[in-house]
């Protein structure tokens, strides 16, 4: 589904990613872990198409398509969706309006007509309930005055409505108490199926207790230095990143 090959990325002439390789297949959940500043957010931002990152080498293919040639919105419409670590506030724009515009833009790209209003209302009510969000959140301005946890739940709500093929979730667990973490994890788990994949970016192991990954990768200094299954996360938790570095250097 997603194939990242030898990816080199610089930000303001500073090399951040230095030859990263990653392959994600349909049905899989991958977790990328690593210390602060390793380049985890950079990876998901580059895949989503954020400005300010220069790809100096390498390729990113999504279902065989060259992602780097696509506009930001084209990537999203193709089913590549980024859940933000710090979702922005958009004053005056209703949450439900953004959801509807996004869903209809994606449907249009698939050659489908606009979703009928009653069907849409039913869908968002249902998904809001799953995320334990009061329907009043739909009528509020996007993320405006939301608490940290509410913003994160809102990100997952968007995922549930938009049903991406590949959901990339950047530090979706940060700032969540244990109850909110469970709601968010349940939401993410409900997205899991054989045709979909999930990329979790985190530097804590605790999220992975709730969303069990198939593959865990350790990103250090712009490269994936170790990959394994979910036990790798536990080992990292116990032994720290230095252990991986020593291991890879040897």
């Amino acid at each position, binding site marked *: 589904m997603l194939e990242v090959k030898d990816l080199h990325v610089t930000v303001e002439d500073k090399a951040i990613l230095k030859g990263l390789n990653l392959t994600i297949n349909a049905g899989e959940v991958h977790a990328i872990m690593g210390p602060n500043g390793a380049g985890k957010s950079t990876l998901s931002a580059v895949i*989503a*198409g*954020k*400005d300010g990152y220069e790809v100096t080498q390498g390729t990113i293919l999504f279902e065989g398509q060259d992602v780097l040639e696509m*506009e*930001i*919105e084209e*990537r*999203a*419409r193709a089913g590549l*969706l*980024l859940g*933000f670590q710090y*979702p*922005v506030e*958009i*004053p*005056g*724009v209703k949450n439900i*309006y*953004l959801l509807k*515009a*996004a869903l209809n*833009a*994606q449907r249009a*790209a698939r050659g489908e007509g606009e979703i009928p209003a009653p069907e849409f209302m039913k869908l968002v009510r249902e998904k809001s309930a799953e995320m334990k969000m009061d329907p009043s959140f739909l009528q509020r*301005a996007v993320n405006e005055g939301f608490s940290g946890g509410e913003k994160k739940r809102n990100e997952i709500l*968007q995922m549930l409505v*938009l049903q991406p093929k590949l959901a990339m979730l950047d530090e979706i667990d940060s700032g969540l108490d244990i109850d909110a973490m469970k709601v968010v994890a349940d939401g993410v788990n409900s997205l899991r199926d054989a045709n979909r994949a999930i990329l979790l970016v985190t530097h804590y192991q605790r999220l992975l207790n709730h969303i069990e990954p198939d593959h865990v990768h350790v990103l250090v200094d712009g490269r994936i230095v170790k990959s394994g299954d979910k036990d790798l996360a536990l080992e990292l938790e116990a032994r720290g990143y230095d252990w991986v570095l020593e291991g890879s250097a040897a």
Partner: protein
Amino acid sequence: MASEEMEQLVRREYKQGFVTDIESDTVPPGLDESTIAFISQKKEEPQWMLDWRLEAYHQWLKMTPPSWAHLEYPPIDYQAISYFSAPKKPEDRPQSLDEVDPKLLETYEKLGIPLHERAALAGVAVDAVFDSVSVTTTFKEKLHEAGVIFCSISEAIREYPELVRQYLGTVVPQADNYFAALNSAVFTDGSFVYVPEGVKCPMELSTYFRINAANTGQFERTLIICDKQAQVSYLEGCTAPMRDENQLHAAVVELVALEDAYIKYSTVQNWYPGDEEGKGGIYNFVTKRGDCRGDRSRISWTQVETGSAITWKYPSCMLRGKESIGEFYSVAVTNGRQQADTGTKMIHIGENTRSTIVAKGIAAGRSDQAYRGLVKIGPRAKGARNYTQCDSLLIGDQCGAHTFPYQEIGNSTATVEHEATTSKIADDQLFYCRARGIDEEDAVSMIVNGFCKDVFQELPMEFAVEAEALLNVTLEGSVG
């Protein structure tokens, strides 16, 4: 997003530029007493009206154009303007839309204003001003039943001279300012509304102004009077065809609200702003003023300004009556080389008067805009209160927005609050929307519309939809 892309995005062509060639009965360019006499005669006006015009003309001769506004424009040659233009056979004027020149209807169609549809569906009475003469007035009977008078000012001068004489020039005196004086001398049409005591006007009143004949300055005069406990909502919308020379528009709007009356005046204005170099746009120098003459009266101005090469406009409220209320909600969008100097004046005269100002400015391209707000609290205005909020949104880095709040507070019991913000349209907001699949243009308009929300929600429903569409056209780019 790179600012270059941003520029691409905000550059767009004026979609409503075209000219309809209905033959006009136009006077040669120039202005002197005989021009004024010609206009007055054409309009079959009584002598007092001609005298009033001439008085204004003599005052105007002694005045000089304002130079203090934050604007730059070449001097206007008032002798090069033609002061009267009318469709050829005034006696053949249609009584209903069926009789309207299909070409005119086609024109409205192109403007995206399906007049008949709007009128029928929305139940809006329409007094369409085409060039300087009203060509159609609809829903008159329904208004007549309610006792509401809604007609062209020329008709009002002939049919209701006592009302016109009683109120004309009492809010904006002939010599109020340079452009008002010129308007008083040469105004050719506009609307007149009178809502009698205790009547709530049964429908929203709407007028589409449109400048058409080449080289014709447009001098509209609108007078709206709401008697005691009466209410009216008036909508004004404008567009103009593309052309090469700058066109002067100097309208005067006077509103009078008596005891407990409420006038809501909404404008969506989309005049030709000129090409990318600013050539050929409309000069819009308007005097709009409301007089809250009666106790507990209320006047509310809501405007969405997206057009004109140069806009100079300060809808104002004179709060004379005790506990009277003045409101000003404004969205001004400038793009290309447009210049706008707008704002409001709230003059608190009576006790416990209140005013609210919410001004949103959006500048894109190389445009420049200024907000100028005066809040004046007189010595007798005990307990007066004002709240002002001015927010500017910049798109790209070649535009400018300036805020000039003026306060004159002659009374220690007054409360005046002012808040102002300037922000750039945030790249992270755009990225957020686009990363959800929404294209760049829609994302910009979504964010901008969100920014304008506080003002749009003051507009009547159908107008709010139109305003949003207009905003999108104004900021539409050539991406894709």
